[in-house]
């Protein structure tokens, strides 16, 4: 490897798509959520559940896969009121970890974002491009986490391999 990085393709992660105003969503499931992030493209976390503010009136709830059923029961997507939308989207995303000393170099090949820590702090999370695909980008221990549409997973794995080969 000409770059000193580690590429990991994660197994399934529990992800729920939340839409509606913070008040409306909070009114339905406040108790199980971390505090709502205030700044766009940031996230908050509470006992293993991360709440990402990734669009106008749009949040992603991210947790370990084993939390999926528990969260689903609490969120009750099919019963929630008309003014909010909750959809389980765990299967729609494939997650990758790019970690190691050269992680930033590899990211610079795939992603146009300025990921300098002064601009992209630890609590940052945002959609951007990754090898030209829409991707959810955030920081993780020792590097970066990127999630792409599940059906593109093989392609991205292939490209990460090329970029670091």
């Amino acid at each position, binding site marked *: 490897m*000409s770059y000193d990085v580690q590429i990991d393709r994660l197994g*399934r992660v529990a992800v729920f*798509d939340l*839409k*509606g105003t913070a008040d409306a969503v909070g009114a339905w499931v406040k108790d199980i959520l971390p505090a709502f992030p205030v700044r766009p493209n940031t996230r908050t976390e509470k006992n293993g559940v991360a709440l990402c503010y990734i669009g106008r009136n749009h949040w992603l709830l991210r947790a370990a896969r084993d939390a999926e059923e528990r969260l689903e029961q609490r969120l009750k997507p*099919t019963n929630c009121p*008309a*003014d*909010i*939308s909750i*959809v*389980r*989207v*765990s*299967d*729609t995303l494939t997650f990758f970890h790019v970690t190691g000393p050269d992680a930033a*170099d590899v990211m*610079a*090949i795939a*992603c*146009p*974002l*300025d990921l*300098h820590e002064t*601009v992209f702090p630890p609590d940052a999370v945002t959609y951007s491009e990754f*090898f*030209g*695909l829409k991707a959810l980008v955030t920081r993780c221990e020792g590097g970066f986490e990127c999630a792409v*549409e*599940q*059906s*593109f*997973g*093989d*392609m991205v794995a*292939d*490209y990460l391999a*090329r*970029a670091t080969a």
Partner: protein
Amino acid sequence: MAQSNRLAAGGRIDRSRPLTFRFNGKPYQGYDGDTLASALLANGVRVTARSFKYHRPRGIVGHGPEEPATLVELDGEDASGNRPATTVPLREGLSARSVNCWPSPEFDLGGINQLFSRFIPAGFYYKTFKWPNWHLFEPSIRKAAGLAAAPKYAPSCGYFEARHAHTDVLIAGAGPAGLLAALEAGRAGKRVFLADEGPEAGGGLLNRNLTIKGQPAMNWVADAVAELQGMANVTHLQNATVWAYREHNMLIVNQRMPEQNSLLERSWRIRAAEVVLATGATERAMVFADNDRPGIMLATSLQAYVNHWGVLPGQQVVLFTNNNSAYPVAADLAGAGALVVAILDSRVHVPDAAMKLVPDIPVHAGTVVAGVKGHKQVRAVRAVPLGGGAGAWITCDLLGHSGGWNPTVHLWSQSRSSLKFDETLAAFVPDSAAQRCRAVGAAAGNLTLDQIIEGGEDLPYAIDPLWRVEIADQKGKAFLDIQNDVTVSDVYLALREGYDNVEHVKRYTTGGMGLDQGKTGNINIIGTVAMQKGISLQDVGTTTFRSPYTPVSFGAIGGLREETVLFPYRHTPVTQWNKDNGAVMYEAGARWRRPGYFPKPGEGLQEAVNRECRAVREGVGVYDGSPLGTFELKGRDVPKFLDFLYSNVMSSLKPGDGRYGLMLSDDGLILDDGVAFRLDEHRWLISTSTGHADAVNQHMKKLLQTEFPGWQVMITTVTSQWNNATICGPRARDVMQALGTDINLSPKAFPFMSFRDGTVAGLPARVVRVSFTGELSFEVNVAPRHMATLWDKVMEAGEPFGILPVGSEASHVLRVEKGFLSLGHEVDGTVDAYDLGMGWAMSQKKPDYLGKRSVQLRRQSGHPRRALVGVLPEDPNRQIPEGAPLTPGGRREATEGLITACVWSVMNDRWVGLALLENGHARQGETAHVRLKDGVIPVRVTKPVFHDPDGKLLRS
């Protein structure tokens, strides 16, 4: 292999590391730190090239990217063409050839062109080669043109990379001005990106003996580089050319020889908050008769070879200048042991400061060079008083000339910032900036070191422009563009014929259109035009500076982004199963790869497709319908939104029910078709065709955010949250039973166009009764995590019923037999729902929906419409090519329709087709004619359905 012209000492080369290389087959030796040019000069090689048009012998003229004369082609692993010898770093084993001559520059057969050169002035080819036609001449012209050979292979090892970067300050050029700017910004804690095209920082200081505060200037450079090295916020690259300045302060850098050995070149896309252009200045040539002879070089380049590379290219030197910069050159050459015979200065008064530098060298003021002796090597130059006269021949083996300096404004100009002509500097300099950028140092017109850095010691510039030498009896070609062989008389000819705009001159003579983009000569063309037309250079103006500043390999520009990034690919959980079972995979729209058909060993397409079709019609088949676009819509206003979005009414749907519908664009074209289901009061699920999923998503979001921001509709894309296996055929219900499900499958409890949630084969599933084949179908939707399992269980449960996987080819046949619409086939932008016999989908009840008014308007025009019909070739075994035109009587006339699809129908045991035919609805039963190149196919016009016309089966 003595390096006859190598000085005993000096230069920034490593004499402990000799390198051997080959030039035009001959072996030579140089040192690490040499360029190919400096090594050739060290070895006394004078004729290094032949010119483009006249094939005149040429030598090395410059010392950097401005080099107009000597282009070489590298052999072997690093094969590449048209490289200025002055920019090729010497390596052990390097092998280079002159381009554009055969067999060698010393003896070039193309030199014959010189004999009839007078017959091929500028633009000559516009006036001849016309009869009988251009083809007769093109092959030989094409052979003669073109410099190096085209590359034959991609690099066999190593790769290119392109990456993004972001910086507060991007500085182009690491000369004194650039280093100063970098230090200032770096010390202020800004993120700095400093890129310089050379192998070593220092810019012009590398070539000259200048001092700063009494110390050698290169000491200051070393200190600056060291300090920058220590700053974490500074990225300093050498061998990195800033070649493009784009909109919004994005600049592109090409980095050669990056730290990683497997990496050939790296392309940086840099977004800079601020840009500092410290790109220096380029010395320009003097224009006089035979100014292209080998041994005639730019003055400062001579100085560079002495100081930078420890090479003295000749022994007896004459210098010709119109400004002060030749005087330090003379001093350095003399210091290196050369005999400087004379300095010919076109200025009438030479400043004392300059004279002081050369006490022992004869200086002839108000004197110009008006002729050269020597063909492959300058032997003497003719010195003539500015006003004319006999003059005298001065023997020499080297002529250094300086026509003054051009600030290197290429990037400045690329940024769309303006230039102005500065009369004192006699050069175009940066004027007002169009983006957040500024020029500093020589690039800004500060041509001497004292203007750039405090304590810098330098001569004043003091130029008195001379755009060309005009001496009545001057003989020989005076070159304005050495690379493209453009002479003063070519420009005169262009002006004489009325090509008098500088752009006309450039195009008619090709001046400035070479690889060097006329870095040393363009200004003289502009000056010549100005003098000839009696206007100022400002009014003549420059031609546009275009990227790249210097040529860049396409490999670096493409980087790692190979076609898969351009055309991503998508997999479903069944993709691997498909491949394992011999599927032929196709592109299926929206980047999905899907099985076209599943041939058995030795089986062709048609047999396989027939087998799959028969299974669906007579038994059961299954296909992976996962790629269909799927969206969940939520909110109180979804019903009215869908009523606006679709041409038919959706709001009346009851929970659990679905309806097929059409989406139109507001100008009345068909955007997509699909099915909408009402999950409950406020939750809906809509499906779109695979290929249009993204477009429909964009369309819906745009409407909601820009037209109806108040409406409460929330859209979530769930295409990849639901995969499905669609089981279709008369035995589909049996297979469902065999799979085991808690859903009551009876037609009454679970009718067509409805869905049920439950479990299938023990997996949580949503089963939908839609049909794209015309047969009883169950679309079993599960989460992708369960898809592979479901698929295996379906194949297992279906086995007793002879279930087969169905590819897109068979699906195509099945939908054609039913006359079901396919956007790619029947919808080509000319038809509407009525033409397709789907008038029922155009709601009359709704006062307004997308496309309604436009469809009405279009139909009012009374122009004949093409309608969807079925066609049966009179010969049942005659296939009709899809897309074939229908013309009246099959005659050679304007078309009246086309065949949109034609398939072998296993149910009808014949070819059947669909067509769009003018006034087709009224022509059923008639005969229409398909016109092919080799004949006419009569077809009977029918209704567009060939199987189960009443749709009993799909409802069964």
